């Protein structure tokens, strides 16, 4: 199919030829031959076609802040001319190195090219990578371009950052946070309740090897798989996550709510690794309850749930959240962790909720097993003017009485400023080193 450029020259040829014939002018006829022969020679050359795009493997599970290498091997067999390759990036992905829109020249021989770039994911969520789009043009745009796309869409889960657990585990000290009353060692007596299948490690009883599951793995380097069972007397941690819209202080990518999610993910990862059962209630967003359970499966369940979590417009659901979680709180006497921002106008509901928890858990003359993680929203955005700095100080001063009141009630308050320190560092601050 010809383009407007080639049609223009054909029109010039016809007009000149007719004019030359009418006037009997050999010079005009000779001049008309040039555009014609130009279009004829030009259109004999075909634009590149028959593209083969092979992609490299991309992990379907990555973490916020990870850099991903995207690489495609492109082979073009036919034609001559430029080839354009483009891959649309999902929202919240930043280009670190290279370019997701590249141009290659296809010469006479088969062309092999590498289309590569590096990206970084800045926010948790489930994202779709669309196939690479390509377009090939004629050298001089005398014929219509060929275009298409290659491959299928790939879905990627970007999980919130997880805690550097080794750093917290290796620190010997006394925690100021009380742990659940029925705090039994991690290596309890195994029950018959199945937890999960995992790879065999030295020391596992031979009877626990799941031979059928091992046989199903068709890899030549098969490693035995063992069944893992729940142990008796497991400790429980109950997380209350505030999803009020007021927490979205900051940018779309960096705001208090995102840091709350990061904290929840870190705590879940930490406690699950310690062998705890973890349950969660998300309040101020309509109310969602995740039953307490242990094992990697539970971590994945909570982590996946956090991926698509959005804020709600409510700010008074905390008391009803405690009521709805009552049976789990009374039955397991868990460590309750409330992840919220105390610098909002509705922080009083948190205080009321902690009082309610005190009534439910604080009867045994022991320290209240409640920890409030306060994600300080006033430090997230950098101060541009002196007044911004003053506003930060005022907000901090306003939050201080609320923190003191919570501490008076017996709750441990972890005041986390995400701009200044990581969540792991904030957790370590809770320990008094011996």
């Amino acid at each position: 199919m010809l383009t407007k450029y080639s049609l223009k020259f054909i029109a010039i040829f016809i007009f000149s030829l007719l004019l030359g014939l009418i006037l009997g002018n050999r010079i005009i006829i000779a001049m008309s031959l040039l555009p014609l022969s130009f279009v004829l020679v030009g259109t004999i050359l075909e634009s590149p076609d028959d593209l083969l795009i092979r992609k490299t493997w991309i992990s379907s599970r990555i973490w916020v802040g990870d850099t991903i290498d995207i690489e495609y091997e492109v082979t073009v067999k036919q034609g001559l001319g430029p080839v354009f390759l483009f891959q649309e990036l999902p929202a919240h992905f930043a280009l670190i190195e290279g370019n997701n829109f590249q141009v290659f020249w296809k010469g006479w021989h088969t062309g092999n090219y590498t289309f590569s770039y590096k990206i970084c994911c800045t926010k948790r969520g489930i994202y779709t990578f669309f196939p690479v789009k390509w377009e090939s043009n004629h050298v001089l745009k005398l014929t219509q371009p060929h275009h298409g796309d290659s491959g299928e869409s790939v879905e990627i889960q970007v999980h919130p950052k997880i805690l550097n657990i080794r750093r917290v585990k290796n620190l010997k000290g006394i925690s100021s946070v009380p742990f659940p009353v029925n705090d039994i060692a991690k290596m309890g007596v195994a029950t018959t309740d199945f937890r999960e299948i995992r790879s065999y490690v030295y020391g596992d009883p031979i009877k626990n090897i799941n031979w059928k599951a091992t046989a199903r793995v068709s890899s030549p380097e098969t490693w035995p798989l063992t069944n893992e069972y729940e142990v008796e007397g497991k400790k429980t941690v109950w997380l209350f996550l505030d999803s009020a819209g007021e927490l979205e202080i900051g940018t779309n990518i960096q705001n208090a709510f995102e840091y709350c999610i990061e904290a929840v993910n870190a705590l879940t990862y930490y406690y699950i690794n310690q062998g705890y059962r973890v349950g969660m209630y998300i309040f101020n967003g309509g109310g969602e309850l995740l039953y307490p359970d242990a094992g990697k499966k539970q971590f994945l369940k909570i982590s996946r749930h956090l991926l698509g979590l959005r804020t709600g417009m409510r700010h008074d659901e905390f008391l009803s959240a405690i009521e709805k979680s009552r049976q789990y709180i009374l039955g397991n006497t868990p460590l309750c962790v409330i992840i919220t921002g105390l610098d909002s106008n509705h922080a009083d509901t948190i205080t009321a909720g902690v009082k309610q928890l005190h009534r439910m858990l604080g009867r045994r003359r022991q320290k209240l097993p409640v920890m409030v993680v306060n994600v300080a929203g006033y430090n997230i955005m950098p101060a541009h003017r002196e007044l911004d700095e003053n506003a930060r100080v005022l907000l901090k001063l306003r939050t201080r009485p609320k923190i003191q009141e919570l501490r008076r009630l017996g709750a441990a308050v972890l005041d986390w400023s995400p701009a200044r320190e990581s969540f792991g560092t904030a957790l370590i601050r809770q320990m008094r080193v011996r």
Partner: protein
Amino acid sequence: MRISNWVFQTAEVAFIAIMSVCGTVALASSQLFNSFQVFIKMRVPGIAPYTALIIGAVLFTTGVFLIMVKNRGRGFFAALVVLVALPSIISFDSLDLFRLLKLDSVRAQFTTKFNSAEMTALGAVIITCYLLINFMSLLRKSRNDLAVQGADLTGTDGVYFKSHLGLLAITSIALTIAVLIGGLAWGIELVAHPTLTHLHWGLFVVGLVCVLLIATCIYWLVSRRKI
């Protein structure tokens, strides 16, 4: 290989200059220009010797302004150059329209000092330069669009350079083919002229249509072949 953008832009300006010179030279060799120069001499005697230079400069400035600054009006500039060269070109008409319209005095103005071969060469140079300028501007615009869209500049410059090589190759082949066809026609004319003069003119019309049909068929068959 990467060549700076200014090299290609300088080449474009050079082609505009060549087109302007060709148009002006063709005009200056015509009788119409001589009459015009006499007219100017009577009114403004001081600038009469520079008339051709002024016309050439105006043409060149118009070309540079339209093509390099505004990046449009390439066809208009080419038409302007052909219009300037027209008094010399139409002096080779077989059909004498002015004599038919009894405008013999006007006919006398449309004569040139150049012979047929020289005039054909000038015409070929004008059209070739127009083809080159047209596609160089198009490639420049494509490159700028790609840069705005955020394409990788190293790749874009490589493609830009190789596209120019392609343009040069296609233009050279097209020019060679046109010269071959012209030469072939001239040879056939020399050999067959005594025989052809005895044939009826209707036969030529039918013959031309047949040749065009055969050419279309050959072209269609060739263009379907993969490279």
